[in-house]
């Protein structure tokens, strides 16, 4: 720990400023008594303090300083508008006001949101009370309980109730009830249903007080729902798709099942596929209440592929038609009355008669409609799609063969005509074409169809006509009347399609290419000898040239083609012509193709040449010197260019770096200035 002596400056300062505690001052003065150095400092410090106090006393601001500051502040920042804004500022300082303001802003935002989305806030609807009033009317025993102020949430319920009541009344007033709906039942379902609903509502509103009443109605609720479902006109239908093993068995089973469920088979249809499989459709009518059980049984027939169940509600249309029918009947009766009473004017009579006819027609139509609906409602329709397994199995397979043949022949036209003459009922020429281009090259293309039993013989015959370059056979099995595999479908061979191209032998690519040079002194003579040799080996000269350059060198270029079997003999005899140089051999190994190697052509290109007798200007001391100097200059130029590139690459970086350093130094200098 630092002693007083070490930190004497701090202690002395605090002492003259009277900021030492009693204990500290005591410690300091004890030390001062002991230490003469510190005592001296103490004296000096006291004087220093005095000087400073005097000095700053002079500089001290006058009493009006604050007033002056405030006044100047006023001058520089004039009070914007004392009254309202100040009041607002004062008010806003209150926490309560702040909360209120935030709440107001939020509320405003919500209102804006409602405006934008056009969503109506869910407040009480007038329809709610109206709906409730309806219930109220139907309710007889709990009039006083049906609250006058219905909660808004019951609006929707009340509305639906009122609609239901409307339906019920129309139903109840209908004079001709359908056969399966007893007339007395028509009146009862509407009211109990209503009552049950109102009872439920009451239970929610006034729990306890009307418990017994609510219970009383609760018992009738079940009968109400069942009878209301019976009033509905529902047409039920189902569609089922089943894959079965045998169609006939399935039909028998379906008939049996239908009889079990007291229904009947309406229609049956079946269709036989090319592969002998059957598929078909059965339409069955069963009683609606037995439908589900029937469908369950149908599943046992085979594999269920698809099932659709549908219900159509025709209640509204049914009762609409019914009430229209009733009106039409009234109309009919009235017209009949008219006929009976008024019989003086023929015209009127006719008019009435006509109208009566129209009304009756309408009545019949509507009756028919109702009957149709009744029948539809009475029975549910089940459409069963049946298909035997392996429906897609093919009936038969067809084997299609396609052969490609490329021939080389010395005389294309002759062979072309020969092949054309092969045509017979079993060998049909589909297409034959002979092309001759402007250089005189001839090629032919023939495509023919050959009966399967003759195909092999014919193709073998054609092959002997020339040199086969390429022969390919492609076989395809085509399924008929289906797809995929089948174990018992027959396989048939179709006609063979043969596509041929015939080209001249010269166009054939050489099996082997050889190039070599022969050095000799008498070029012309040797070239002649070479030609003789080639002919002796049954070769053909394809081209030959002779040239002499200014240096006195002579060249003879000969290209020739010999059959492969004579190639080696020719090569050996070439040695007699001169010194054989630069032999290079290139062989085309055609994989997979059937090649008659002995007869395949081999190309040779032979250069017979002599060395000149004049020294070239590109040799010697001067030329070497010139070359060396030229290359040296080029190298120098190249290195100069590289230096230029390097400079262009580095210069921007150097400039950027210098700029950054300059900015950094500048900033450091400014900071240092501020730190002073």
């Amino acid at each position: 720990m630092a002693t007083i002596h070490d930190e004497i400056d701090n202690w002395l300062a605090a002492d003259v400023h009277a900021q030492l505690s009693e204990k500290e001052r005591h410690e300091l003065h004890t030390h001062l008594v002991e230490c003469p150095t510190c005592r001296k400092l103490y004296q000096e410090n006291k004087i220093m303090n005095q000087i400073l106090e005097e000095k700053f006393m002079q500089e001290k601001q006058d009493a009006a300083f604050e007033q002056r500051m405030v006044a100047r502040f006023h001058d520089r920042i004039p009070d914007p508008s004392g009254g309202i804004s100040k009041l607002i500022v004062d008010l806003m300082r209150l926490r309560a006001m702040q909360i209120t303001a935030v709440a107001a802003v939020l509320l405003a935002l919500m209102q804006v949101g409602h405006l934008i989305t056009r969503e109506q806030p869910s407040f009480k609807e007038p329809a709610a009370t109206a709906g409730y009033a309806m219930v109220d009317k139907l309710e007889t025993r709990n009039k006083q309980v049906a609250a006058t102020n219905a909660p808004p949430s019951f609006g929707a319920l009340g509305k639906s109730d009122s609609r239901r009541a409307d339906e019920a009344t129309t139903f109840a007033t209908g004079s001709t009830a359908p056969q399966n709906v007893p007339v007395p039942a028509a009146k009862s379902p509407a009211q109990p249903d209503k009552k049950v609903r109102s009872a439920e509502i009451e239970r929610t509103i006034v729990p306890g007080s009307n418990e017994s009443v609510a219970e009383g109605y609760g018992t009738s609720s079940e009968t109400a729902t069942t009878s209301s479902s019976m009033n509905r006109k529902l047409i039920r239908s189902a569609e089922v798709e089943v894959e079965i093993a045998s169609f006939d068995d399935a039909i028998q089973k379906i008939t049996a099942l239908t009889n079990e469920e007291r229904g009947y088979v309406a229609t049956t249809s079946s269709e036989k596929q090319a592969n002998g499989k059957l598929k078909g459709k059965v339409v069955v009518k069963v009683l609606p209440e037995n439908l589900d059980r029937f469908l369950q049984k149908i599943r046992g027939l085979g594999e269920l592929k698809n099932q659709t169940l549908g219900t159509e509600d025709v209640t509204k249309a049914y009762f609409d038609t019914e009430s229209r029918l009733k009106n039409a009947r009234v109309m009919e009766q009235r017209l009949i009355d008219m006929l009976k009473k008024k019989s003086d004017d023929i015209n009127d009579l006719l008019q009435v008669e006509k109208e009566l006819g129209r009304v009756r027609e309408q009545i019949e139509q509507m009756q028919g409609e109702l009957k149709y609906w009744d029948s539809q409602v009475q029975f549910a329709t089940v459409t069963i799609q049946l298909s035997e397994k392996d429906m897609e199995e093919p009936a038969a397979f067809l084997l299609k063969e396609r052969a490609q043949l490329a021939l080389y022949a010395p005389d294309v036209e002759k062979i072309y005509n020969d092949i054309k003459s092969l045509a017979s009922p079993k060998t049909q020429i589909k297409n034959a074409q002979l092309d001759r281009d402007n250089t005189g090259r001839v090629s032919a293309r023939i495509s023919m169809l050959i009966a399967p039993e003759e195909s092999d013989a014919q193709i073998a015959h054609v092959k002997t006509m020339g040199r086969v370059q390429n022969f390919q056979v492609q076989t395809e099995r085509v399924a008929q009347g289906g797809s995929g595999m089948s174990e018992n479908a027959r396989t048939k061979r179709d006609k063979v399609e043969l596509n041929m191209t015939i080209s001249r032998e010269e166009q054939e690519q050489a099996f082997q290419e050889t190039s070599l040079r022969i050095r000799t002194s008498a070029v012309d003579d040797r070239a002649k000898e070479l030609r003789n040799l080639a002919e002796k080996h049954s070769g053909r000269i394809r081209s030959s040239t002779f040239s002499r350059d200014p240096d006195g060198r002579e060249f003879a270029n000969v290209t020739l083609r010999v059959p492969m079997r004579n190639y080696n003999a020719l090569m050996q005899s070439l040695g007699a012509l001169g010194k054989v140089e630069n032999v290079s051999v290139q062989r085309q190994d055609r994989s997979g193709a059937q090649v008659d190697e002995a007869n395949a052509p081999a190309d040779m290109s032979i250069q017979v040449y002599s060395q000149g007798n004049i020294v070239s200007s590109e040799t010697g001391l001067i030329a070497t010197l010139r070359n060396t100097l030229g290359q040296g200059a080029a190298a120098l130029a190249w290195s100069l260019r590289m230096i230029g590139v390097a400079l262009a690459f580095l210069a921007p970086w150097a400039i950027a770096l210098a700029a950054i350093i300059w900015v950094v130094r500048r900033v450091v200098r400014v900071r240092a200035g501020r730190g002073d």
Partner: protein
Amino acid sequence: MMDANEREMYRAAIHGDRDAFEMIIRTHSRALFAIAYGILQNREEAEDAVQDAFVKAWKSHWRLRDPGKFPAWLCMIARYRARDVFRKRRTVPISDEMTEPVESETTDTTALDRQLYFALAALPELHRSALTLRYFEEMDYQSIEKLLGLSNGALRGILGRALASMREHLKPALASLE
């Protein structure tokens, strides 16, 4: 610690209450003047700097969140403002300032004043601020600490070293006075 009234005053000033701000001007302008004077050693300039500091504080009062930091914040603005003035002044040739006191060097007191001036100028800025706050306003250490954001030990050290430094600079003068 800061009492509730004072805190409320700062809070109101931050929220733009002019009256509260004027109250702060009244209570704080002397302390700020002391600080500015410590930096500038010129009454007129110091007064202008304080004035500017108040205007700037009023204009940017919304930037401050914590009312408790208001005095220190105000103090900092004044220091920066004074430093700006000082830096601008530095471009003026320093010889003018040098010659002025020399001309009027007739009595002992002016010589002492000049020595005091240079001795003060030689101190770091923070030391000068602490000294001026102490001698102008006779503030106790606690208030100075709060204004300058220092601990007690640090302030003692600063004032001790400041006095010692002044002593060193004025040694000849002190000797003559003794």
